[in-house]
């Protein structure tokens, strides 16, 4: 049941109306927008089902202005919005941010909310640099003002296969059967579709014996794990969110399911809270996800800044891609030398950043405003930390594969 | 000519308890027919079977030459029988006039015409001055009158009145008796009434039927029935005479 997302949204209506109308707020806001600072709208799901992710992304956005200024970029001011994990509200909030005079927007983590905000930006001609959202249609719909430095679903799936092959070759241990378990939401389904569609192209050593979809708001995942275990697959490939990743792991231990290893594409399994909740049982999971390259200088700066602001918090995809979106904006602003939308968009189209944080050669958009070169990493949970294991050029350590059985974890 | 209403051996049980057993009677057009009997004698159950609220377990109800046994209440109303409820059932959020208009819409398709007809019914029952009050604010006697006005407004040939005099003062009872008599005389209405107020029953009824424990124990002219020994012992109690 997707009910879990409902609370704050019961508020009948999004916002605005008579009070604001009487105040005649809009013209003043637009007037205020003139100035030397670039106003960046940051629209994230900070309440509702995805609240923890939105808040996580926000942390990186908050670090960006000071960090980027120290790297020689211009002044940026953040104007915050909350989508409440709801595309409808995302749309209204995007309008509100634009009325408040933002020059450029970033967000919204979730595909549906991002699409809703993208339509507004397109209508108003405001540049929108997407931080995270994998739905292919975002850069296939012909938006003129929308830019994405995040791999699409098929790109993530492709990298997932390539990274696995690399891992199996390096460790010499490959499963012959895999069960694919995915959360039945926008991201989970599209990712699972891409995987089942692309697998034949890659000549993988295994076949997917069953595809199991489960409810994103399920209270109890014991039957799901039971079904997965019942397939007797050698390894299991998850596409999850945080809460279900935790529940799945616990059930696997309780049901004494000892696969060769756990592979994940998508959030959940690498998140700090996952490792915190499960301790030693959170180790050895391999996430095949868009990630940061720990060896790049800008990444090191981000990791240091994050450590300073939030001791103990490890940098993850949410941080890396949100920060990188800010970097792309700052870079375009520097080159455009103006807050003017048309100039910013023109500058964004010519983006060519080498000194970035995410994996891959850098940021450069194609004619659809997608960065086709951005890559994923294989990241393994080790002792409460995420360590990159592949690709080799962005790796920090060697993989543990097969994983340590639950019963043998000290 | 066949009687207007003919009830043939109707019976009804609730959870094995017999409420009405094998009651038969007939009412001629333009007759006023009284039904009396102690509480729990099955009078209201009998009404509910005629009006379609309950389907009889056995027996038949003939009205105006048609078999209406087991008809839904609205179909019974369509056939030409109006009814009131023993426990008044006003539309609480509607005004008095609107209450009666609902009934009048059965006879008039247009709302305007129905409202006029409803106003006439209210005047007839001396409720005209209360027409804009909400039904929930009426006194009990006025609610009883409202019940009658509403049933009348549907334009019935026969009307079933369930204790409409209960709670009325003697002068009010007399007014009601006059009104009912006028309705019969002027509109040719046939009336079947359940009543405890003997003064009204005696004044109004052409014939009276007595129910006891769900069975008919007497029927005839009012004066004759009240002297019937069976009635005296079972209903009025021997000591009453």
């Amino acid at each position: 049941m997707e009910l879990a997302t409902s609370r704050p949204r019961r508020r009948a209506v999004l916002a605005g109306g008579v009070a604001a109308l009487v105040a005649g707020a809009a013209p003043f806001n637009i007037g205020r927008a003139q100035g030397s600072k670039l106003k960046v709208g940051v629209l994230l799901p900070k309440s509702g089902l995805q609240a923890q992710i939105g808040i996580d992304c926000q942390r990186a956005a908050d670090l960006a202005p000071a960090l980027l200024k120290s790297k020689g970029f211009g002044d940026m001011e953040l104007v915050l919005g909350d989508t409440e994990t709801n595309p409808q509200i995302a749309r209204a909030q995007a309008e509100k941010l634009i009325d408040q005079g933002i020059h450029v927007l970033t967000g919204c983590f979730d595909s549906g909310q991002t699409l809703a905000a993208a339509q507004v930006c397109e209508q108003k001609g405001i540049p929108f640099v997407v931080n995270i959202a994998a739905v292919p249609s975002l850069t296939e719909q012909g938006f003129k003002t929308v830019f994405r430095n995040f791999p699409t679903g098929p790109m993530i799936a492709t990298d997932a296969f390539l990274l696995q092959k690399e891992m199996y070759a390096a460790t010499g241990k490959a499963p012959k059967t895999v069960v694919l378990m995915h959360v039945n939401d926008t991201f989970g389904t599209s990712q699972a579709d891409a995987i089942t569609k692309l697998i034949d192209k890659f000549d993988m050593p295994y076949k997917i014996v069953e595809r199991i979809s489960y409810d994103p708001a399920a209270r109890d995942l014991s039957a799901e794990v039971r079904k997965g275990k019942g397939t007797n697959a050698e390894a299991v490939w998850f596409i999850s969110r945080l809460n279900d990743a935790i529940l799945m792991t616990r059930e696997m231990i309780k049901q004494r399911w000892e696969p060769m290893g756990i592979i994940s594409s998508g959030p959940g399994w690498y998140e700090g809270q996952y490792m915190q909740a499960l301790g030693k049982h959170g180790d050895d999971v391999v996430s095949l996800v868009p990630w940061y390259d720990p060896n790049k200088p800008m990444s090191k700066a981000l990791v240091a800044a994050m450590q300073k602001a939030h001791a103990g918090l490890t940098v993850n995809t949410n941080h890396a891609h949100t920060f990188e979106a800010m970097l792309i904006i700052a870079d375009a602003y520097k080159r455009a030398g103006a807050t003017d939308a048309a100039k910013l968009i023109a500058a964004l189209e010519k983006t060519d950043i080498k000194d970035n944080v995410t994996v891959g050669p850098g940021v450069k958009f194609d004619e659809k405003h997608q960065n086709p070169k951005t890559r994923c990493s294989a990241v393994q949970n080790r002792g409460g930390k995420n360590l990159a294991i592949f690709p080799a050029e962005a790796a920090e350590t060697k993989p543990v594969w097969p994983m340590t059985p639950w019963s043998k974890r000290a | 000519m066949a009687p207007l209403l003919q009830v043939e051996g109707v019976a009804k049980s609730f959870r094995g308890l017999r409420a009405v057993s094998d009651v038969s009677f007939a009412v001629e057009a333009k007759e006023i027919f009284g039904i009396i009997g102690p509480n729990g004698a099955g009078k209201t159950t009998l009404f509910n079977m005629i009006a379609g609220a309950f389907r009889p377990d056995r027996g038949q109800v003939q009205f105006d030459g048609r078999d209406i046994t087991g008809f839904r209440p609205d179909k019974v109303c369509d056939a030409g029988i109006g009814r009131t409820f023993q426990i008044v059932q006003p539309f609480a959020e509607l005004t008095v006039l609107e209450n009666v208009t609902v009934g009048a819409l059965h006879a008039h398709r247009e709302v305007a015409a129905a409202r006029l007809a409803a106003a006439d019914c209210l005047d007839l029952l001396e409720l005209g001055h209360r027409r804009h009050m909400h039904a929930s604010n009426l006194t009990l006697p006025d609610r009883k009158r409202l019940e009658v006005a509403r049933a009348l407004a549907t334009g019935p040939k026969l009307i079933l009145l369930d204790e409409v005099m209960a709670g009325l003062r003697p002068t009010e009872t007399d007014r009601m008796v006059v009104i009912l008599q006028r309705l019969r005389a002027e509109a040719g209405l046939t009336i079947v009434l359940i009543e405890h107020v003997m003064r009204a029953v005696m004044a109004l009824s052409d014939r009276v039927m007595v129910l006891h424990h769900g069975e008919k124990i007497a029927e005839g002219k009012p004066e004759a029935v009240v002297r019937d020994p069976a009635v005296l012992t079972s209903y009025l109690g021997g000591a009453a005479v």
Partner: protein
Amino acid sequence: MSLYTRLLGDLTGRGLAALAGFVVLLVALPSLVSSYIATVATIVLYLAFLGQAWNLMLGIAGLLSIGHALFVGIGAYASAYLFAIHGVPPLLGVLAGVAIAVAAGALIGYLGFRFAIGGVYFALLTIAFAEFTRIMVDHAKFLGGTEGLFLPVSAASRHGFDLLNLRGSPEMFYYLILALALAALALCRWLLTGRTGYYWRAIRDNPAAAQALGVDVFRYRMYAAMISAGMAAVGGVFYAFFYNNLFPEQVFGIERSIELTLAPIVGGVGTLFGPIFGAFVLTPLGELFTAGVEWLQTSGAIGRHVKVDGVKPLFWGIAVAAIVLLRPRGIWPWICDRLGLVKPPSERS
């Protein structure tokens, strides 16, 4: 009775003036305010429209539905599917959506009435149907499933005005929903002052008595359920073409159903203007709380990472509870009395 009397007959001079002023203000709104506020006003009117539809079901016919998102969703998905996949313009798609929704309304109504499921049980029946449908659409690949159904965005959909295909500027959608909301209000008034309306109100107050007066209770209840469902489906078509993307959770979720009950309940169940008024009260209320929280954050009273998401809905919940406790008949009837907008029954023709 003339059309004028049926639609406006019970308003005092002051009431007429207020209504006229309100309509003029709404018509002029997009040129007075920023586009954000115009969007919000669009959503307010959308909720007012749906509130009117829902109100018909509860306030008028006495049936509590907490699954109305089902009908909205049917309208949205049917028209969007026909447009996006088969290129059928929404002007025709709306017919399909309404037809399916009316059929669904008839089915649920039929089951509810025939099996004598009333009150809260009926409400749960409606929830169950809506949730069941949500899960089914989740798994319906041809409708996009959980990945959503998207309407193509084209140049015409940015600034143009294409009423046939419902592609156009925000202003077009604003005036469209304004027209729909006013039409819904007029339709409801027209129905309510007619025979059907008398019967509905009678059934709501006392079904047994209504039946004894010759009202075919089942039939009139079915009318209410079907008209309400059909209107909701029209709202759904608007939703689909306004937002351009549909997700089962967003469209059929119980939160959608609850959302659309709020305006009429707060405004006044069973009143015609209540749903509209309720929508216009709740919106600024939400905005006020948002502004308050933002002010607290910018003034440094609470930090950015303090968990403030809850503050706004907390006060919102308290405010709604207070309205229920203090004005259980809704706010609109109270305002009406205070301002003398409606004639007392004795002055109506």
